[in-house]
């Protein structure tokens, strides 16, 4: 997923014959990384140009990816790859800059909040300084500005504002021809991310309305209310974008449904593992065979294949551990698994599954 696809099939084939590696383009990486970390091929290297303190616990990292990076669309996210104490860690973050910045200056930004106990976010905050190089994957995600233009409502909470900032800047740059409203929930006004940028955009573009709401500055917590939505013109004809903590997203979903906004108009993206789909507890688990390692273990309950493998002392490859990055994809040769995110039941035959979100239902055999 992080690897760049080589254009020519013949060259790729030849590379595989000569290097014995599935991704021959990274055969020289350990050498290249030493000479110039920007030459690494396994992922797109990106040099940290600048680190900006947004709030007490949020920083924006301005990155200059190698020119071969293929760019992104506003609202998309990206896997980043860092090595911490010798261990490669992949995490997914939204791009907070507009694609315009990449096209004109070759820069992108990630705005990242420090998570309590978070390994990667804390490392980024504490250890990353300008000049360092981190890895980027290609951008992905369907949290995109509607085309053709339609009235839009954004409801963002906390660091969920980051993809929205990218979208608002993009819309502003193209003089988006429809009204846009942002309801931005923060704990206190000190926690506002990109506040100045948002104010500037709102003052320059009359079609953009920004409303910042602090949830924890009064006696009673002040969450999203019905009247916040009732004040928005033509709510039912708007495309709604939700991004933030689960509580906010659930509440917004309910209030919108009550007002007749249909699901096909509601788009959401997430930063933390989404709430697992309700899985029926009694029929979960089973005998798992890790064929390549010749290991068999029984599992009970909703443990996923990655957890089961690790508990059995195996070390399969993994990335985000929440079903986004596909680093842990592998071949299931028999048995049925349930997708933890969607609750969907797989077929019984051979197929690729993501270990980190696949829960066995009955005996399962995988190539690990």
């Amino acid at each position: 997923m992080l690897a760049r696809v080589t254009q020519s099939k013949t060259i790729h084939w030849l590379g595989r014959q000569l290097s014995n590696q599935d991704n021959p383009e990274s055969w020289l990486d350990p050498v290249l990384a030493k000479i110039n970390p920007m030459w690494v091929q396994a992922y797109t290297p990106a040099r940290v140009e600048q680190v900006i303190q947004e709030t007490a616990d949020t920083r924006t990292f301005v990155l200059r990816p190698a020119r071969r990076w293929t760019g992104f669309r506003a609202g998309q996210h990206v896997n980043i790859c860092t090595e911490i104490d010798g261990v490669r860690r992949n995490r997914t973050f939204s791009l907070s800059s507009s694609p315009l910045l990449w096209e004109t200056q070759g820069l992108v930004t990630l705005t990242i909040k420090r998570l309590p106990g978070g390994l990667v976010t804390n490392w980024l905050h504490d250890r990353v300084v300008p000049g360092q190089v981190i890895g980027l994957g290609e951008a992905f995600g369907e949290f995109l500005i509607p085309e053709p233009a339609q009235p839009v409502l954004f409801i963002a909470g906390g660091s969920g504002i980051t993809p929205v900032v990218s979208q608002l800047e993009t819309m502003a740059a193209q003089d988006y021809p429809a009204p846009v409203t942002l309801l931005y929930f923060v704990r206190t006004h000190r926690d506002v991310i990109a506040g100045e940028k948002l104010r500037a955009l709102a003052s320059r573009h009359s079609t953009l309305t920004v409303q910042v709401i602090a949830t924890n500055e009064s006696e009673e917590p002040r969450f999203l209310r019905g009247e916040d939505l009732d004040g928005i013109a033509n709510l039912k004809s708007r495309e709604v974008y939700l991004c933030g903590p689960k509580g906010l997203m659930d509440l917004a979903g309910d209030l919108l449904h009550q007002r007749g906004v249909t699901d096909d108009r509601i788009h959401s993206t997430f930063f933390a593992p989404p709430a697992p789909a309700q899985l029926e507890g009694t029929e979960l688990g089973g005998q798992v065979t890790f064929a390549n390692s010749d290991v068999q273990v029984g599992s009970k309950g909703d443990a996923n294949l990655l957890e089961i493998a690790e508990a059995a002392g195996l070390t399969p490859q993994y990335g985000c551990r929440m079903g986004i990055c596909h680093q842990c994809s592998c071949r299931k040769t028999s048995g049925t698994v349930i997708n933890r995110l969607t609750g969907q039941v797989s077929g019984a035959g051979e197929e690729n599954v993501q270990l980190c979100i696949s829960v066995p239902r009955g005996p399962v055999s995988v190539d690990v």
Partner: protein
Amino acid sequence: MKKLNETQLQELEQDLNAIRDEVLADLGERDARYIRRIIRLHRTLEIGGRVMMPFGFIPPVFLAATASLGVAKILENMEIGHNVMHGQYDWMNDPNLHSQTYEWDTVCTADSWRRTHNYEHHTYTNVIGKDRDYGYAVLRLSDEDEWKPWHSLQFINYILLSVLFQWGVGLHELESEKLRRREIRWRDKLPFLKDFARKGGRQAFKDYVFFPLLTLPVAPIVLAGNIGANLIRNLWSSTVIFCGHFTQDAETFSEAECEGESKGHWYLRQLTGSSNFTGGRWLHILSGHLSYQVEHHVFPDLPAHRYPEISEKVQAVCLKHGIPYNTGSFARQYGTVLNQIFRYSLPDRVRTRLEGRSAPQAI
């Protein structure tokens, strides 16, 4: 094998687990830096060898190119491939250093090797009849193997096996001895043979077709150099492996002995079935640290460059439990291997008489 009672075996298990846990807790930056440095060295030597080879019409350049490529292959097979495929660097979560996906620069496919070596050999180490690595079904090295007339020529077999070592390892899973005895059918081995043909073809293509053709006017020189590099690697790796298990003092075991064994018993078997040899730092690196075969067999998935530091602790455990720790100079250990191959090529009657007569001088 030295006999320990269940309590002693349990204590042995705990002692060794403690060493393992200590190393696991300490894995990090240092190990990542080490393996990447070795990879850099490998890439440099391989590229250097390939670039120099067409100029091999100058004799010293030919020697340098062949040596460079040969050493590159040794490093890749032993310190990188073998160790990565044991899962020693899986914790790094680097897709290029992962045991399940790594493919090495030799004829044996990684999948086949994971089955025959990682699983079979490391589970049933030196159990005659179960560990097919013991003598590679070609050599007779223990009393439990009945003498047959063709064993008298096994020194020739040994030389052939060493010269063609990568092909021998590649075909190991064919279980030719079972095919001969008609215990299995050729048809069962078709999927394996298909994989073997693909990987063998790829390796042959690279060294014997692609690079010679690429350098057409000097193709014969490049071909000869590549054959030489493969030969260097074959001879060296077979020698290292033979010194790890077929020395005079490396013990063998019967299937009955190992029936339903405990982890402690497995540890004991690994300790007494393997043998080390001593030498300088580069001797260890070039042997993929299989010069610490004892440590490797006890902890096959700990990064091999840690074996020298683990070794002292393992020796202390051996001393505590009165378990022999088989080590010696490279020359001495290899000498006993050659001696073993020769001795067991003789009919038992002749051998015992010979040994009886020379008993006072025997090592």
